[in-house]
């Protein structure tokens, strides 16, 4: 019998109260008719098989009823429903999108087996962390026992010809053991083996290139292709999610150091990745590499002077700025989620208070507390679910926009997708908020204390709720102040950055790249012929004011740093204060970018090998080495030769707007002699022209095609784009933050407005009495405004404090703007105050228009 009573508990309480005894009575009769143990067991089994589905069906009936009721109730207050759904959608959507992207970039493990054992290695000198020299790489690899394997790579682009249009492709030269160090097996074919380095003609291509260039041909293995005019054979295709060292790499060749490469120890261009031995820690590896580096410094005191070793987990190579950008975004979206929850809670509380009477009536009419609570649970769940669904849509729409924040240099796939876990978390938070702030008041209303609501009408009660609502509004104001100030600080930082003079004028300058392949262009005369022909024809185009070729564009390439040795200075070559950035260039580079020529002359066609090695240096170079001296004619040793200064130009921010740059040295393009300087060979064509890009570009393409039909053109950009790119990810983040801040501001204004309107309508009798007793309407207005003011101040003060803390945390992003920037704080606080006042106006006016007679009579 107890068994049956327990079974009956499966029914909703309301059903049980109504029919429990009846059901039980039927069971008693049945049970009495059954004989023996088997009969009893059979009765129980039958009862079980009866009650379980029937109880489920009854629950389902109630749910359908509640859903119908909910939809009707929501249709009756569409304003409430829409606001609640919108608030939840924004909170869940923004949060999910931001965290999905952050997780993708910051947290998700790299797509390699046991990524925690993969380590990036660097040479560490005072002020610099740089790639390894081949010689040091060889010795580190041979000496470091904490590594299971170690591989190296050098990235460069190649011209792919022989299958369709000539194409410029990002490629990487890798030691044969790099792919196995990363632990990745090819999708088809095979990876490199030591034997492949003998002739170096084997290549592995990316899945993407296999699709786009080779139409997914299964026969691609063994196919011959031409890279920079030399034949290569495809031996493997990498899996679709393999992107190393960066997303743009399409092809891998083998890297093999010649004996002569291994001699140099101060030409740093080798990127190195190691896989730690099982059980070895990063600390051990660092200590071991430190010992090796010290030994090598003793062995090569000049070239390896002050050269230590640095090792960092491969997963940890994100720049501090990117990390902060994403964290700031996550913080902001968390703020929005909190705000959304606070707002939802507020809305539900307001609704609960206004429904107190309805619920009390229903309770008095015999609807059990359980039925009422159940109804409310259904309602808040429906609201949260609708909001959550809309939130998913917001997230799906927002994630692609946030992808701009994913740096291109990471070895991960292209597109982050909406993260289910984050979505569930945000959804759960919203549902919990919804339940907490709808069910508790409902239980209270339906319970004994609710009867008071019946007796007193709608004016009293809700004191606690009112206080909770005030706290919620304060939290909303606080969150919006934090967001406003943080995004304000970032806007100021952005303005400051955009105001920075890059040292050149980017307007009306078009650039494109024609990388001349070696060995085809190994002979300097063949290069000169190409440059002369192209530049001559381009300069002859109508509208073109000047054109030049340069090794690397400023900002597009930030490296190329070489030690400078001046006469009389120490022979020290490894220190930040004695290096300069190197560019080889043709004449007219300075006039094309409008970099001012301060003294002397531009590089010239006549600066050829055999003549004195000319150099044009930047202003800061002169200030560093020959302050207060006439620089023209001074000599220094740079890139293996003695150079003589022939000109001085203005400084350029080669490393980008946000970083200080080394002094610059420009060398004439005709004085490149060594094959291993080929990376510096001018390849970027810069054109200053008044012609629109659409007419200029076809003409330039034709000219290049005439000079060399097999020469691909790549990286067509305007100089403006390159400068804008400096601030692109900031701009993307800033836009999002500003949208979030605006949303927060609106939400908090809505919150204040809602709370005050509600207070006014509930206190209309009190206000009426006050006015009947002689209070002026201005006084009443002031009373309401004061309430709003108190709420605003209570939110703004802690908000400003938190914002200051947040500003301190992201100081690296602020480009010199102080975290306590007065202008930003003042603006944000005024803005927030103004919004608050806006939110107060209507309730205040309504309060002052309360007619004492009506208000009192209404009771």
């Amino acid at each position: 019998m107890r068994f049956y009573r327990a079974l009956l508990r499966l029914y909703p309480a309301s059903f049980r109260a109504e029919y429990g005894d009846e059901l039980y009575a039927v069971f008693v009769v049945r049970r009495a008719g059954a004989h023996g143990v088997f009969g009893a067991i059979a009765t129980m089994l039958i009862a079980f098989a009866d009650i379980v589905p029937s109880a489920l069906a009854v629950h389902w009936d109630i749910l359908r009823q509640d859903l119908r009721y909910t939809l009707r109730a929501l249709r009756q207050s569409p304003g409430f429903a829409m606001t609640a759904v919108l608030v939840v959608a924004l909170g869940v959507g923004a949060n999910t999108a931001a965290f999905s992207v952050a997780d993708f970039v910051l947290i998700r493990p790299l797509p390699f087996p046991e990524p925690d054992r993969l380590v990036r290695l660097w040479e560490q000198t005072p002020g610099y962390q740089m790639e390894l020299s081949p010689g040091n790489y060889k010795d580190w690899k041979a000496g470091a026992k904490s590594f299971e394997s170690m591989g190296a790579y050098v990235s460069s682009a190649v011209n792919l010809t022989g299958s369709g249009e000539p194409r410029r492709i990002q490629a990487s030269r890798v030691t044969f053991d790099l792919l196995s160090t990363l632990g990745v097996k090819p999708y088809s074919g095979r990876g490199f083996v030591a034997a492949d380095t003998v002739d170096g003609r084997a290549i592995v291509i990316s899945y993407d290139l296999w699709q786009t260039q080779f139409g997914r041909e299964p026969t691609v293995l063994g196919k011959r292709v031409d890279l920079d005019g030399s034949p290569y054979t495809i031996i493997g295709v990498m899996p679709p999610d393999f992107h190393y060292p960066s997303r743009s790499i399409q092809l891998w060749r083998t890297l093999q150091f010649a004996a002569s490469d291994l001699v140099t120890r101060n030409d740093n261009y080798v990127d190195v990745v190691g896989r730690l031995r099982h059980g070895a820690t990063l600390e051990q590896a660092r200590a071991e590499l430190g010992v090796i580096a010290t030994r090598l410094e003793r062995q090569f005191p000049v070239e390896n002077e002050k050269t230590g070793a640095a090792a960092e987990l491969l997963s940890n190579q994100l720049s501090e700025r990117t990390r902060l950008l994403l964290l700031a975004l996550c913080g902001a979206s968390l703020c929005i989620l909190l705000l959304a929850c606070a707002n939802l809670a507020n809305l539900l509380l307001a609704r609960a208070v206004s429904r107190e009477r309805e619920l009390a009536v229903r309770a008095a009419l015999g609807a059990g507390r359980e039925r009422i609570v159940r109804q409310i649970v259904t309602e808040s769940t429906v609201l949260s679910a609708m909001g959550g669904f809309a939130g998913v849509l917001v997230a799906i729409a927002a994630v692609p926009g946030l992808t701009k924040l994913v740096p291109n240099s990471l070895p991960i796939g292209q597109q982050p997708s909406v993260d289910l876990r984050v979505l569930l978390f945000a959804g759960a938070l919203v549902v919990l908020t919804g339940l907490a702030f709808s069910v508790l008041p409902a239980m209270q209303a339906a319970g004994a204390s609710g009867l008071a609501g019946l007796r007193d009408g709608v004016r009293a009660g809700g004191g606690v709720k009112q206080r909770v609502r005030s706290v919620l509004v304060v939290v909303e104001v606080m969150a919006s102040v934090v967001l406003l100030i943080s995004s304000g600080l970032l806007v100021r930082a952005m303005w400051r950055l955009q105001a920075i003079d890059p040292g050149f004028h980017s307007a009306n300058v078009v650039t494109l790249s024609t990388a001349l392949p070696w060995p085809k262009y190994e002979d300097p005369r063949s290069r000169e012929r190409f440059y002369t022909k192209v530049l001559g024809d381009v300069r002859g185009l109508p509208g073109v004011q000047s054109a030049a070729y340069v090794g690397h564009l400023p900002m597009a390439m930030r490296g190329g740093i070489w030690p400078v040795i001046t006469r009389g200075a120490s022979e020290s070559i490894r220190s930040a204060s004695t290096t300069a950035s190197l560019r080889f260039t043709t004449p007219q580079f300075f006039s094309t970018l409008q970099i001012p020529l301060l003294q002397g002359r531009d590089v010239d066609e006549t600066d050829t090998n055999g003549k004195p090695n000319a150099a044009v240096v930047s202003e800061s170079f002169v200030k560093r080495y020959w302050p207060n001296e006439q620089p023209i004619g001074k000599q220094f040793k740079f890139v293996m030769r003695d150079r003589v200064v022939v000109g001085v130009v203005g400084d350029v921010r080669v490393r980008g707007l946000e970083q200080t740059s080394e002094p610059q040295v420009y060398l004439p393009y005709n004085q490149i002699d060594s094959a291993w300087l080929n990376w510096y060979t001018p390849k970027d064509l810069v054109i200053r022209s008044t012609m629109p890009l659409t007419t200029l570009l076809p003409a330039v393409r034709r000219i290049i095609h005439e000079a060399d039909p097999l020469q691909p053109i790549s990286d067509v950009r305007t100089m403006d784009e390159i400068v804008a790119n400096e601030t692109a990810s900031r701009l993307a983040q800033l836009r999002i933050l500003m949208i979030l801040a605006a949303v927060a501001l609106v939400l908090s204004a809505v919150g204040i407005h809602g709370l005050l309107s509600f207070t006014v309508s509930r206190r209309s009798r009190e206000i009426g009495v006050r006015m009947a007793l002689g209070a002026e309407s201005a006084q009443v207005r002031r009373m309401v405004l004061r309430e709003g003011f108190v709420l605003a101040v209570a939110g703004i003060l802690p908000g400003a404090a938190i914002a200051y803390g947040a500003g301190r945390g992201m100081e690296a992003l602020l480009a010199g703007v102080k975290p306590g920037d007065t202008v930003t704080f003042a603006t944000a606080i005024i803005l927030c105050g103004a919004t608050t006042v806006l939110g107060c106006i209507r309730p205040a006016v309504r309060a002052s228009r309360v007619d004492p007679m009506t208000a009192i009579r209404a009771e």
Partner: protein
Amino acid sequence: MPSPAFQPADVDAQLPLPPATFHILMAVTDEDRHGYGIIQDVMARTDGELRLSAGTLYRSIQRMLEQGLIVEPRRRPAPALDDERRRYYSITPFGTAVARAEMRRLTQLVRLARARGLTPESA
């Protein structure tokens, strides 16, 4: 005759009736019965073929009360026949109308089947 408090459309909205509902309506057509009485009546009328389970019965009763097909009458049966603890149910005019409509629907269905030469006996 007073006009019924329901429209023909209300009646049609209930059709087709679930078999259990139809049986319960039949059981309370001639006299008010309590739950167990309904179960027994259905069993007797169907020669033991249909045994309503208690769960099915009371869920049906709950819905039928809500739909207005049956009511709990205020007057109880004669004291000698009354079981104090039990709740009795009786059919409403609306319930009768719905039962009739369902009957019509079923009869028509049977007639249509017969016209096509279908017979209940297997060949």
